């Protein structure tokens, strides 16, 4: 895949995750979500389980954004 397209698609998913934060918190509190093409394609309480699930489906992991969704009221400080 073209490197610029790869980065653009990944960035779009990241921005989408930011705009959809409230909805993600409602559906997947304290879970890891895998996002591809601005859709949640897998989720679990364990990041390892998410990756295992994606590998079973033969997903290209380089295209997938995986992030933790804190429950409402829980803020992540970096």
């Amino acid at each position, binding site marked *: 895949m073209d*490197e*610029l397209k790869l*980065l653009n698609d990944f960035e779009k998913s990241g921005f989408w995750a930011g*705009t959809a934060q409230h909805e993600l918190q409602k559906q997947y509190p304290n879970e890891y979500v895998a996002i591809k093409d601005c859709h949640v394609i897998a989720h679990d309480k364990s*990041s390892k389980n998410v990756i295992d699930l994606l590998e079973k489906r033969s997903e290209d*992991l*380089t295209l997938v*954004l*995986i992030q933790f969704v*804190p429950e409402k009221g829980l803020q992540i400080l970096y």
Partner: protein
Amino acid sequence: MKIPLLLSPKKNVLEAYCNIRFSPKNIPLPIRFIVDTGSSETFIDEIDVMRYRVFTKTFPVSNSILIGGNKISLHKIGKTVMAFKNDSGAMEQIEFNDLKIAESARSRQGTMNAGASILGMNFLNESALHLFLDPTNNVAYFGKN
């Protein structure tokens, strides 16, 4: 040269997206970094490394850091090529020699790991980039004179 950065919708997190390449794979892996000028270190989280199908423990431990009271081991990757999108829409490659992997706390029962990859001050220093940030007008970028 400018490398646009992304302010989160609430304007409380500054993000930099880039493709990284490092041995042994050397294929592009897109990463979302949190830009953190309070961090002296630049590292990718183990979750991101798992997406690359390489094992953290194949890289030597460099040092440890404390994050939120948790001691985290950093493994040194070494030389990395980081490709950002510049303000012309073209890829801008930057070599960085101090990228590390943060060993995740995911294996500890009952812990939660935000899984963030951090772009810290050592990246800005080594690459001689400056950071412009104007949240009011939603403008943020890395620049080079």
